[in-house]
């Protein structure tokens, strides 16, 4: 070894300048073990959470809409908005699941 010794004490030198450990595939092993697209997954889960919460709200609110319309207009009419709300409430979780699967592949691939 041609390395100069900044420390007169060999023990100090050995402590401060350990032999470099060759990577030997260590980095590749760590990178392989990293979770994949965790940010995308977090975004999708957050979006799915909001959509599900919105859907749950519409399911609860749907039956009330005809009543509100009846009270405000004073006459009973078929409520298009209630039908639309119910349809959206049914479709939103399904759409979220399809988007998640297309973007992520099967969950748990990390």
């Amino acid at each position, binding site marked *: 070894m041609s390395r100069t010794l*900044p420390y007169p004490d060999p*023990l*100090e030198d*050995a*402590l*401060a*300048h*350990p032999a*470099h*450990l*060759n*990577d030997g595939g*260590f*980095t*590749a*092993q*760590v*990178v392989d*073990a*990293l979770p994949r*697209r*965790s*940010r995308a997954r977090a975004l999708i889960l957050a979006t799915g959470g909001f959509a599900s919460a919105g859907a749950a709200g519409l399911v609860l609110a749907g039956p009330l809409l005809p009543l509100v319309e009846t009270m405000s207009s004073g006459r009973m009419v078929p409520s298009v908005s209630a039908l639309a709300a119910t349809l959206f409430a049914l479709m939103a979780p399904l759409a979220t699941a399809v988007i998640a699967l297309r973007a992520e592949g099967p969950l748990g691939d990390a």
Partner: protein
Amino acid sequence: MNEPGPSDASLVARAVADGDRHAFGELVRRHQSAIRTLLRRLCAGDAARADDLAQETFLRAHRKLGAFRGEARFGTWLHRVAWNTFLSEARRRPPAGAGGETEPAPPSGPDPALARAEARLDLARAFGVLREEERAALALVYGLLGQSPPPPGQDLSHQEAAAILGWPLGTLKTHVARGKEKLRRHLLGASEATS
């Protein structure tokens, strides 16, 4: 670390903002030797255990990368993560033999006497003769010193190591001095035995 190419800070920024796995891989490549050496010393030469902990260290670092504020050098922050990883694992392990001081792991080889002498000359294994506090103090102080040598007259690595360990500076220096003395006696005994 004085590596050519982008700085550690810019690699961290890319890894956080874009989820750039290559940027994080470059950080691992740069720091793997220092972190594995630190953990081998903490594990008294048990290379397999140390490498498992090193991998866990980098995975933890990846999870917490957003919390790295750049107030310390990335290497220093990584040493802190490695120490915490080691501590978590050490708490789960059954306690070593009473007394705190353990002999280095017996090496395997065709000639046990020769293999033992070689092992005693190996510095990482020699850490096994130290008490845990002395091992931690020496491993961290010299590990941090390897990140970048401080200006003359400053003991920055001592201050950083004391902060990581949560000890007063004086306590740290006491453990460093005692640990070095034990290592010196141990290695001197080994070299006399082999000559």
